[in-house]
């Protein structure tokens, strides 16, 4: 039997295998893009480079927020060999147990991935990936660890950058950063897990201006995720760009000085440049060192302490605390009454102490004196005329009309509504209107006599310290204001457009003169309530307030602007539970004004007295 023909069978087999391989390879290499994409996924990585956050300067060009280099201790499990856990724990100052727990935490923290095809769950954690074992080590800490890391293969240090605050002031305003949440990652493609985002204050409001532009680097990577070379010689790469610096209207020296004055006190100082609306200083006392909230470790350690502190250092009082304004309210009342024509600058009302208590020894024969002496009965009479203009016979209906008109005036002063400044979270305060009282007493069930305590800034009326300072700025400007704001310029651009809109009050310019004269007398004339604020070379115009506090000692408040002609600074000082406005708030405001305008303090004794004073029933912080 001859089997020679069988050679063709074998040749046929060989040919058919070779032929189908060629077709298959042609399909894979030329027609189907799937494998090219797969190769890209495998070997080409898109690396994002996060630039350092923009720095922040104060109005005088001092760098008040910068970045500092930190280090992460990274770990690649696959490269760890014969780890001496005890020695490693000693090196980083942990216990062996803590090291083990941290390993577990990293592995578990990555979560699990559910394969949509097979339904199998696999850990996201990969042994070949680098994970931060300890985050945010300082240079000092890492310099103790790094030299020994060669004994622990699989561990290495990596540079990162975090916020640094060379001056300790302004913690509540500047805000802090923390890691983005999953929701934030989903909402904005800019963020990747592990990135930081501004959590409060200016850091949050100007997040997009501060974060800069991420760089993208396409690289060819190995299976161990090491970079081998840049992809296509860097043709598609973009460079990370730090955002241009922010410049604040804040004067860091004044801010720090204000914080020093308010040590051991509870309260606020808000200083505004009237001509621009820039906030020169915003002190919230007690405050905290902004460096306490830099980085995850610090936040984890310090945040709970700050939250639990009974003195509430995290509470930004100037923006969120609402207080009855007390006698400083009389300034606005005077202006409204003059504008409404219910009084003239020379109107006189007797100091009738049967209406409301007042201090003795004065008679206000005109509006300036009324301001100077802060005569309570005078303002009852003024307010009665504003509210009950006798436009309707029914006094209840008349009061409703009058109150709503008054409310409109107040609104034009930025009161009873949120001043949309560039740190979010302000409170609007309270300026009651008819609806407000309808809820309390019923429709048309109230008249001036019911609500008269608001005449002198007590009762239902409430203002934030920012609003108080803005009143001073409005009076300094004689009738208008820019919304108070922190940021003077973003890179080469000016402030946000809504801070360039000049807002007018409903009060004409001429009505301000007698009120300002009264404010001058408050500080500079005998019988004024803020003689303690007087300065020899600067004419301060101010108004004290002593806010009656049913829960404890009265609050001390003072608003002012200076100098009288061409004012440079408008200020509000509010000290909780400190007593008379003239005793504490006025001299503090005076010191800040002097420091700002003269850069030095003449009366060192006054300064010393203020700094050393412990007021406001401040609670001891339990350790």
């Amino acid at each position, binding site marked *: 039997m001859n089997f020679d023909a069988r050679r063709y069978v074998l040749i046929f087999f*060989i040919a058919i295998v070779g032929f189908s*391989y060629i077709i298959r390879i042609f399909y894979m290499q030329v027609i189907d893009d799937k494998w090219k994409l797969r190769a890209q996924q*495998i070997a080409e990585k898109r690396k994002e480079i996060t630039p350092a956050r923009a720095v922040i300067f104060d109005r005088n060009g001092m760098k008040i927020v910068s970045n500092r280099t930190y280090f992460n201790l990274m770990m690649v499990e696959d490269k760890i060999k014969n780890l001496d856990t005890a020695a490693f724990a000693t090196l980083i100052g942990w216990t062996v147990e803590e090291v083990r727990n941290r390993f577990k935490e990293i592995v578990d923290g990555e979560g699990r991935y559910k394969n949509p*095809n097979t339904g199998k769950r696999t850990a996201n954690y990969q042994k070949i990936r680098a994970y931060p074992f300890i985050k945010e080590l300082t240079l000092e800490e890492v310099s103790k660890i790094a030299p020994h890391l060669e004994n622990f293969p699989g561990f290495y240090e990596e540079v990162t950058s975090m916020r640094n605050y060379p001056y300790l002031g302004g913690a509540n305003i500047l805000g802090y950063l923390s890691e983005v949440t999953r929701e934030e990652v989903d909402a904005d493609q800019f963020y990747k897990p592990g990135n930081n985002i501004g959590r409060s204050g200016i850091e949050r409001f100007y997040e997009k201006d501060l974060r800069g532009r991420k760089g993208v680097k396409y690289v060819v990577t190995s299976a161990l995720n090491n970079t081998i070379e840049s992809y296509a010689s860097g043709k598609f790469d973009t460079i990370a760009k730090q955002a241009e610096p922010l410049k604040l209207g804040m004067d860091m020296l004044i801010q720090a000085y204000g914080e020093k004055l308010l040590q051991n006190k509870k309260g606020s100082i808000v200083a505004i440049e009237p001509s621009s609306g820039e906030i020169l200083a915003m002190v919230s006392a007690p405050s905290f060192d902004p460096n306490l909230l830099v980085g995850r470790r610090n936040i984890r350690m310090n945040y709970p302490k700050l939250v639990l502190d009974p003195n509430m250092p995290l509470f930004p009082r100037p923006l969120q605390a609402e207080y009855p304004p007390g006698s400083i309210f009389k300034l606005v009342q005077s202006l409204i009454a003059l504008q409404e024509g219910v009084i003239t600058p020379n109107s006189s009302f007797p100091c009738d102490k049967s209406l409301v208590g007042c201090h003795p020894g004065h008679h206000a024969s005109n509006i300036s004196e009324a301001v100077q002496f802060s005569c309570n009965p005078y303002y009852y009479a003024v307010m009665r005329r504003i509210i009950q203009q006798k436009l309707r016979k029914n006094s209840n209906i008349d009061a409703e009309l009058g109150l709503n008109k008054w409310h409109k005036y107040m609104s034009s002063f930025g009161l009873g509504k949120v001043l949309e400044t560039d740190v979010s979270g302000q409170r609007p305060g309270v300026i009651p209107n008819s609806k407000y009282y309808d809820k309390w007493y019923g429709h048309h069930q109230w008249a001036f006599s019911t609500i008269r305590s608001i005449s002198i800034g007590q009762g239902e009326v409430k203002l934030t310290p920012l609003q108080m300072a803005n009143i001073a700025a409005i009076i300094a400007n004689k009738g208008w204001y820019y919304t108070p704001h922190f940021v003077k310029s973003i890179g080469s651009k000016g402030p946000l457009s809504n801070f360039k809109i000049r807002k007018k009050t409903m009060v004409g310019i001429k009505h301000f003169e007698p009120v300002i004269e009264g404010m001058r007398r408050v500080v500079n004339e005998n019988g004024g309530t803020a003689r303690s604020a007087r300065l020899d070379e600067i004419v301060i115009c101010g108004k004290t307030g002593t806010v009656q506090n049913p829960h404890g000692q009265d609050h001390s408040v003072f608003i002012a602007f200076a100098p009288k002609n061409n004012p440079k600074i408008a200020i509000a000082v509010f000290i909780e539970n400190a007593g008379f406005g003239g005793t504490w708030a006025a001299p503090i405001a005076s010191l800040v004004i002097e420091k700002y305008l003269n850069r030095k303090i003449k009366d060192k004794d006054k300064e010393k007295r203020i700094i050393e004073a412990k007021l406001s029933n401040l609670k001891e912080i339990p350790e």
Partner: protein
Amino acid sequence: MRKEENLISYLDWPLFISFLLMLIMGLATVYSVAYTPEDPSLFDLDKQYGKQSIWIGISLFLGLLVFLIDSDIYRKFAFPIYLSTLLLLVIVLFMPAINGARAWIGIGSMGIQPAEFSKIASSLLLAKYISELSLKQQTIASVSRAIAIILVPMILILLQPDAGTFVVFTSFLFVMYREGLTFDPLILSIINKVPGFRFKYTWVGSHFIPILFVILFLSILTLLLQQEETDFYFLPFKVSGSMYVIFSLIILSIIGIAFIRQFGSKRDRSRVSAVILLGLVLGGGLSYTVDAGFGSLAPHQKDRIELFLGLREDPNGKDYNRNRAMAAVGSGGFFGKGYNKASVSSVESNHVPESETDFIFCPFAEEWGFIGTLFLVALYLFMLIRIIFIAERQRSSFNRIYAYCVAMILFYHFAINIGMSIGFAPVIGIPLPFFSYGGSSMMSFSIMIFILLKLDSQRKDVLS
């Protein structure tokens, strides 16, 4: 002097040149894959390409020795050679395991793999045995001995374990088929035990291998195409995977019948046509059955088969190697990324494991693209068919059978090695001859080719 003249004038140059071409291409690929800028020298012994150069040098020297030795020795000493490799295969089982297999004798990089050489020894003994066999009177004993020759080393190799080489040994079945060895004595001894059965001959027994090959080939092809379902606008139904196969079979049959009508003898015409038509019906039926059968499988069974065939992906799990390998091949494109520019399969990037040994096809395909792979596959096909051509011109059946052994072993390595890089074959680690880095495979394949060239050059000295 006479011998020298003989060698040059009787050497089969096409085979020799294609062999040398592959050595050069292989070394160039190993160099490119393992290249690092720090060690640019081809002869840097710290790198794979340095060692590979040495292996090639040794292989060529061994080839020269083969040429100098009288060709008669292979037939005369086939059995001692076979026994000594068996001994080595036993010894290797007592060696320390490297990567989970006891495959190496010797230390470190200077070790050899006896399994590689046992392929030559088995080829020689099989050639000797079958050539001395009376094919007209095959008995249970004669068939069993032939099977034993390949089965003994297979078992020893499986003990290492080395699944790749184990599978390669089945290539000898193709050789047996060519030589007319039939399994009939074995099959008949079983079948005829059934009362009433009195067969003298079973078609299956003598055509066992091509039947198996065709069944496997058609089944895999059907399964691979099983997910493809195309909606041609001019057809009222969807074209499924098995339809593609059946359609291809019809076209092949038409070509085959046309071919036989043109060139075949009168007797062949009707007979071959009938066989082709029968094959068409059976093949079509098989394809349809496999398609329908697969559809009725339980999901987890489907899963396993799909994973095996690379239809289902588990890129970071069981399918890691194949997935990376296919990505590397596919990313080559038409013209390739250029020499030394493999980004997925270089040793440095290490996405494709064993890219300098078992997956050497990946960097080659990545760097040279379809142009390169087409050339490579064509070169292999040329070499295989040339060896069969050489086999058929031998006067001695020993020479012919040996040549077929070489052809089929190389065919297996070619088909499985490239197949696993393109998702057509399961991932079992066997080298691509003349390409893959490794001393034992380089030496054994070279010696294999040189023995063939030597036998061929002296074919006219053989009388029978």
